[in-house]
């Protein structure tokens, strides 16, 4: 009796299983492709970052050098500007007193301190009426912040002596406040 090998029947896979298998292979290819793409890109970017870092170093050095050169000048200009703003014109005090002094009033002793913007000025006039008028004129001036009167007395010559303590507003030292400058 002859022995016959029966041919094996072809295995037929269902269509959905083939689709699933192809899908799995595509996914694998996609995953591997993406992974290597990301890996290469990361390496490239790391290199790029390093290169940019080396570009930044001389740039930072140049900035630092320029700043070292310019900062002291800037500071000095600022300091000078501040100083210039605070620079006082003592002459304004004299011009103010000349402008405000009534014809029959004479100022004599004079003490001025710029820090307090204070002037102590002694003087004399003929009558109390003129003194009162002088006080009124001073009080009405916006540049006079405060006025204290002391030492009001009648001298041997019959004149009225007085001492004013004037405190001025800061504007007294600004160039344009007093006319005749």
């Amino acid at each position, binding site marked *: 009796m002859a022995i016959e090998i029966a041919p094996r029947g072809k295995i037929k896979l269902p269509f959905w299983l083939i689709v699933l298998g192809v899908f799995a292979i595509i*996914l694998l290819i996609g995953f591997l492709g993406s992974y290597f793409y990301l890996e290469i890109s990361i390496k490239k970017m*790391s290199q790029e970052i390093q290169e940019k870092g080396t570009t930044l170093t001389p740039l930072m050095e*140049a900035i630092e050098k*320029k700043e070292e050169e310019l900062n002291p000048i800037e500071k*000095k200009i600022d300091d000078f500007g501040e100083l210039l703003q605070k620079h006082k014109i*003592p002459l304004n005090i004299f011009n103010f007193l000349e402008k405000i002094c009534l014809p029959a009033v004479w100022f*004599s002793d004079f003490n001025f301190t710029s820090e307090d913007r204070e002037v102590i000025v002694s003087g004399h006039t003929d009558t109390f009426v003129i003194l009162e008028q002088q006080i009124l004129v001073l009080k009405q001036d916006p540049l006079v912040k405060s006025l204290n009167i002391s030492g009001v007395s009648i001298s041997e010559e019959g004149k009225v002596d007085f001492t004013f303590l004037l405190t001025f507003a800061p504007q007294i030292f600004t160039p344009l406040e007093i006319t005749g400058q």
Partner: protein
Amino acid sequence: MKRPILIIIVGFLILLAVGGYFLGWPKYQEFGDKKLEVEGKDTEIKQKEEYLSKLEVFSDRLSGYNDELAEIDFALPVEPSIAALFIFFQKTISENGLILKDTDLGELFSSEIQGTPGERIQKMPFSISVTGSYPALKNFLSVVYRNTRLIEVNSISFPSSEEGLFTSNLVLEIHAYQPKAEKKEAEIPE
């Protein structure tokens, strides 16, 4: 026969998902971080380049103000010349019809006067006494005010005089500059 193939495929898909989560996702995040880092570096370089070019423009513009800068240096010298100052006052006083009666420049030579730590601008006060008329004093003060040294007049005092001539005592102030000193911050009250 279908079942083992299905198990293999499903297992393979699960493996892919796990691999994607543990390998792919961190890689993607790293990629995103690096991208941001590159963009950050680009922006930083751009900003630095712009800043440097601004500094260069500023430097070029500043070189056109050499005279003005020299005047500032004259007003705020690191080491003011006391001799030059004295010569200036002698000349100005006599030119304005005044007589120099007395000077006290001692404090200017004292090193202690410059010892205000933290302040770049050092105040250097000194005093002089001059005799002359009122208009002469005014002229003198006008010249002192206009001088590029920025001389401050701290106080003026003079007594009454019948003859029209009087002696005025003036306390003046010049400045020295300490470029290395850092400005004091304003003290905050408690």
